[in-house]
């Protein structure tokens, strides 16, 4: 019951955010389409800027699937096979900055896609010795989420920092295999789809201040309004919302870094 309520709330928030009635994507339109005209009057540089409607992120970071947390497991298969440590993750995210919330920032839907892979030497079943084959798991973490970037602080004070948050639905396609091909165990194919909630909190450091002239040039030539470095704590709770039989818990809780663009 609680779970359903949580889901409903999350969904309602996401839809509300995405259906926000005021399209405020274009900075240039601020003065024309708002009741806060006096205080939101664009700066001279904003007047010169190209319209801003999307954000793009290139993401990198460690990724430790939480497979071993699956209820009912008698061991830690992921750790036994692949050992400790994390695998490398990279991904991309594309946000549409659909609406601007006065005094807060922009909000809109985002789509994320990523890739991570890990392999290790497979063991001979009878002896436990290394075989000539490798065994691997490949995960494609993806999500659809509402993204709120609180950039009003930067716009109004000039502090080049933009905190943001994301909340949405995460899912991941995963597959396992060996160097000889896809894994099959007792007739069960070693692949599947896991899903659950996804959320993140992070902060972006705007690099435009470092070289405003270059930033303006980049905007004029490529339509890039801002360039950011960012760090983000990211949680993919891919537990299937408690589904039974369970999904493989290929989600993670990690910290990612990357570069982002407003365009």
């Amino acid at each position, binding site marked *: 019951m609680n779970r359903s309520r949580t889901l409903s709330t999350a969904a309602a928030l996401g839809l509300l955010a995405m259906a926000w009635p005021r399209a405020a994507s274009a900075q240039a*339109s601020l003065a024309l389409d708002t009741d806060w005209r006096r205080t939101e009057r664009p700066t001279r540089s904003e007047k010169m800027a190209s319209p801003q409607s999307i954000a793009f992120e290139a993401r990198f970071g460690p990724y430790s699937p939480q497979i071993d947390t699956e209820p009912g497991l008698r061991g830690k*298969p992921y750790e036994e096979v*692949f050992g400790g440590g994390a695998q490398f993750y990279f991904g991309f995210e594309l946000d549409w900055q659909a609406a601007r919330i006065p005094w807060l920032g922009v909000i809109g839907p985002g789509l994320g896609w990523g890739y991570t892979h890990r392999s290790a030497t497979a063991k001979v079943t009878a002896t436990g010795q290394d*075989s000539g084959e490798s065994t691997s798991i490949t995960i494609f973490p993806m999500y659809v989420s509402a993204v709120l970037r609180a950039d009003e602080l930067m716009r109004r004070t000039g502090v080049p920092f933009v905190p943001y948050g994301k909340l949405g639905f995460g*899912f991941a396609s995963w597959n396992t295999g060996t160097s*000889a091909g896809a894994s099959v165990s007792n007739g069960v194919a070693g*692949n*599947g789809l896991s899903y659950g909630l996804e959320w993140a909190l992070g902060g972006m450091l705007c690099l435009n201040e470092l070289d405003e002239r270059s930033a303006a040039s980049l905007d004029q030539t490529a339509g890039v309004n801002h360039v950011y470095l960012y760090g983000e704590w990211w949680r993919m709770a891919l537990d299937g*919302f*408690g589904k039974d039989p369970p999904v493989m818990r290929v989600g993670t809780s990690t910290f990612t870094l990357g570069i982002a663009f407003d365009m």
Partner: protein
Amino acid sequence: LAVLGWSSEASAQNVNVVQAQITRTLVSRDQASGPYDISYADCLSKDEFQFPVTVANLLGRNLEVWLGNTSADCTQSLQRQQINPVVCRRIFGPATVAQTGLQVSIGDRAIVDGLGITNCEDAAQLGNNVSLFFMLVGDPAENLDPSNVWKWTGTIVDLVGPLPPTGVSVGVGDAALLVDFTKSDATDIIGYRIYWDDGTGPAPTTPQPGQGSIVNGGAGGGTSTTTTTDTTTTTTLGGSWPPPPPPASDGGTGGAGGAGGAKGAGGTGTGGTTGAGGKTAAGGADAGTKDGGTSSDAGAGGSSATSTATDDAGVSAGPGCPVSKAVVQGRVPDPGYANFSQQAGPSTITGLTNGTAYAVGVVAYDKVGNVGQMSNVACGTPQPISDFFAIYRAEGGRAGGGCEVAPSRDGALAFTLAGAALLGLGLVVRRAPRSRARTSSRAKTPRGSR
């Protein structure tokens, strides 16, 4: 006048072949595979080149076809008549021909013979470029005008397969063996064939091209400094046998065994009389496995290496290896042996039986289909493998089997939410143009008119 007349006659000769109409009776290869080249298999076959020849101004002369290497000029009588060394050989004619409609057939074997190669198996060189001179010859002492001779240089005689790869090793897989090797340095390699045998494969029944295979036995033992008087190896090819004269009385280390020949007769190290014996005779196929720990105890040599392949007892490449006749180092595999996988490099053999030992060797092949000698032979026994997913399932994991969302109510709910989110996204996207349009119209509307 006589000189002028002779000169006129010579320049009036005319032989021509339409290159596009040259065919072969049995061989058909595409342009990238040397359509006019002669491979080992071609040499063994009864294939013939068919040259459609047109002649003019016969003047009582006969058609002859002479063969030389690329630097030969068989239009010159001296080169045609030189016996030692032979520069040019006549491989067709003299034939009395009519003016038109002439088809000259020259067997592949005739061209090979023209190079002085008496057996297809004897060729040791790679890629003999040949030149064929189609000429009208009257007086043997006559130098012919090259402009009136049709010269064919489109054939390369290549009877030997490429050198094998080295360092072949296998890794154990589930019903599979993972084969790794270092590619050969040979420049004419098109690909590799990975052969395997569980001990049931037959010995090659065809003659072996190139050197040092069935007939000749394996390479002899390496250098030896022993004082032995017991010489057992009489291998004639390869290695450095017989060993250099021994020093006084000091026992030495036996030479390493040479590569086994088809009959498994490897060279051996022979033990010194008092010192440490030759360590191995491992190169011998099935015979040379003795450690020459004492004086005269040497591995069996290659003296019996003249047997034919059909009575071959097979070779075991080492502990855990099956005795194989089909996959033997230094041997060219039988063309009819089908247990191979054609690859561009190291690869995995699949479809094997767990628990069965296999001998694995690799050969290289070139563009005309010549297969080289077998590499070193490695062995492996496929075994069941515990991969991550098998371990996960064995330890109680229950996920897997593809997408599991649909049967679950929660899963359906989750996908419904995702769909709703996408729908919301679509709605927002649709609203955007209207908003912009509205904004635009407001901007154009004078403030007082609102």
